[in-house]
C-alpha cells in the first residue's frame, strides 16, 4: 500500500527517526491495523453525542504552589547517554527550527539503530 508507506515516512520525519526499508515495512503493517481499528470506530453513528476526550468529568484537583524537593543531579543524569557537566549533550541543534528554537536548518536526525548504550560517554 503506497498510501500507508507515505504516512510512515511522514511520521518518521515528524519524530526524527531514520528507518530502513525493513523497519518501514513492519511499521506500515502495524500502523495499518491501528488505522483500521480507528476506521471501524468512525463508522459508528455519534450524532448527538458530545465529544468525550476524558472519561472522568470530575473537576481536577489542584496542587498548592509549594516547592518540593527535585531529583538529585545524580538521579537526573542516571540514564543519560551523553552529558557535559550537569548538562545533557545532544546532537547539534544550532540554528535549527524547533518551535522555540532559533530557526534554521533541520536538526540532525538521531539514528534509530543507535542504542543509548553505544553513545555512553567514553572514558567514564
Amino acid at each position, binding site marked *: 500500500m503506497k498510501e500507508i508507506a507515505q504516512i510512515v515516512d511522514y511520521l518518521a*520525519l*515528524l*519524530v*526524527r527517526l531514520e528507518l530502513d526499508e525493513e523497519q518501514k515495512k513492519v511499521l506500515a503493517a502495524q500502523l495499518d491495523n491501528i488505522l483500521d481499528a480507528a476506521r471501524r470506530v468512525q463508522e459508528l453513528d455519534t450524532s448527538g453525542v458530545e465529544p468525550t*476526550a*476524558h472519561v*472522568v*468529568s*470530575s*473537576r*481536577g*484537583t*489542584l*496542587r*498548592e*504552589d*509549594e*516547592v*518540593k*524537593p*527535585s*531529583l538529585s*543531579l545524580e538521579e*537526573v*543524569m542516571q540514564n543519560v547517554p551523553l552529558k*557535559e*557537566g*550537569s*548538562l*545533557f*549533550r*545532544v*546532537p*547539534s*541543534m*544550532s*540554528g*535549527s*527550527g*524547533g*518551535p*522555540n*528554537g*532559533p*530557526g*534554521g*536548518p*533541520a*536538526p540532525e536526525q538521531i539514528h534509530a539503530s543507535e542504542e543509548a548504550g553505544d553513545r555512553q560517554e567514553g572514558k567514564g
Partner: protein
Amino acid sequence: MDYEAVIGLEVHLELKTRSKIFCGCSTAFGMEPNSSCCPVCLGLPGSLPVLNRSALEMAVKAALALNCRVEGRSRFDRKNYFYPDLPKAYQISQYELPVARGGYLEIDLPGGIKRVNIERVHMEEEAGKLLHAGGSIMESDYSLVDYNRAGIPLLEIVTAPNISSGKEARLFLEELRLLLFYCDVSDCRMEEGSLRCDANISLNLPGAAMGNKVEVKNMNSFRAVEYALDYEAQRQAEILSRAGEIVQETRHWDEENRVTVSLRGKEEASDYRYFPEPDLPPLLIEESWVQELKEALPELPAHKRLRFEEQYRLDPKDVAVLTSSPELACFYEEAARHVEDYTGLANWVKGDVLRIHNDSGKAIGEMTPLALAETISLLERGEISRPVAREVLEEALVRGKNPAQVVQDRGLGRIADPGTLGPLIEKVLQENPKAVESYLQGREKALGFLVGKVMAATRGRSDPAAVNTILRDKLQNLPGKVE
C-alpha cells in the same frame, strides 16, 4: 499608495509562581543546570502532572485584567514535536479550549485611546533551554540542554490583528507589562526571557482584502518589536508597490543589521498533532471563584492614571511616571496625604525619590513616604534649605530615619546665629573687596552677590534674612567707610 499594516501579536510570559506548573520543582532563576527537575517535568514514565493552583489563579487574574471572558470549561492538549528542549516530546498547552477569550487592552495614542482586542489567553508549560557548544552558533557540533526551565508556567496572550504600526505594538507591550506588574502575575522581563513576543504582519490597501502574512520572530526588546515591525511594513510596501508578491513565511529580526531575514527553505511545515492531554482532567472553573478574583483585582493602571490626573490635578506626563509601578504610585499617594502641593510632591517623587532609589538600590516599597512629607514640611517652614532637604531626604529614605532627627544629628538646620554668621561674613567681605566697593558706591546688586557667597560658604544652610541683616549692618560700619 498608502498601505495599512495589520499586525497581531503573540505574547508569552512567565507566571511568577514559586513552583512549576505541573510539579513541585522550583522556578528560581540561576540554579545549577538540571538541578530543578523531577520525574514529572522530565517526562519520566509513570509520572502524572497536577496543575498548580497559583498558576491557574494568575492566569485567571491576567485574563480578567485584560477584560477577557474566563471559560468555565477549558482543556489541556498535547502539542507534539520532537526537539531536545522538550523532555516529553510534547508540550502541555491549551489549543481548542483556552482558559479565556475575547478581551481587550486600551493604549494611549496621540489621536486618542485605541482598543487592542485580545483573542485568547491560554496556559502552557515552558520548554527547556538549549545551549550551543563550540565556536559560532552555526558551526557548533553539539548542543547542551538544561531542563530547569522546562515546566515553568507560561501564559500566552494572542491579540486580534488590529495593531497598525510598530509603535502601537510597543505601546501595547508596555501597557501589557504594566498591567501584569499591577496584577502581580509576571515580572515581564524581556531580557531574562520572562516575556517573549512574536508578531504577524500583513499589508493591504484601505478597504482591500488582507495581504499575505509574515511571521516575525526573534525580537528581544520592546524597541526591537517596534523597529522590526516598521522595517517589515516598509519592506512589504516596497515589494507591493512594484507589484511583487509577499511570500507567506517566517522571518527573523536581525538586531545587528536591523533587517528581517527570511528562513525560507530552512523551515518545515509544522504539524503538532494536538490531542487532548489524557493525564489532566478537563479544567472546570467555577464562576464564583472567578468573581472573587475579579473583586480582588487591584486598581489597574488606566484607572489609576485617570484618578491621579483628577484627584491630584497632575500633568499626564507626571502621572505616567508616578504610576509606572504600583509601589511608586502607592508611595506618592501616601505622601500626598500629608502634603498640600501635589505638583511639588510629584516633582520630588519623580526627581529625588527615583534618583535615591536608583543610586542606593533601595526598593521604593521599603521607603517611608512620611519621610518625604516631613522633609518637605521642614523645607516649607524654612528650617532647612533645598540642598539640605535633598541630603536629609536621602538619609531618611535609605536609612529609614526621621528627617527632623537627621537635621538635628548632623547639625543641618538653618544658621541664623550672629555669633556663627559674623566671622563668616567678615571673611566674605575681606575676600570680595570689589563687591564691597561696588555696594558702597550704591549698587544694591552687589549685596545679593555677597549674600550668595555667605550661603555658599555654609552650603546653603544660612538663613538668608539673618545674613542680609548682619551683612548690611557690617557694611554700614566698615572702618574707613566714605560717607
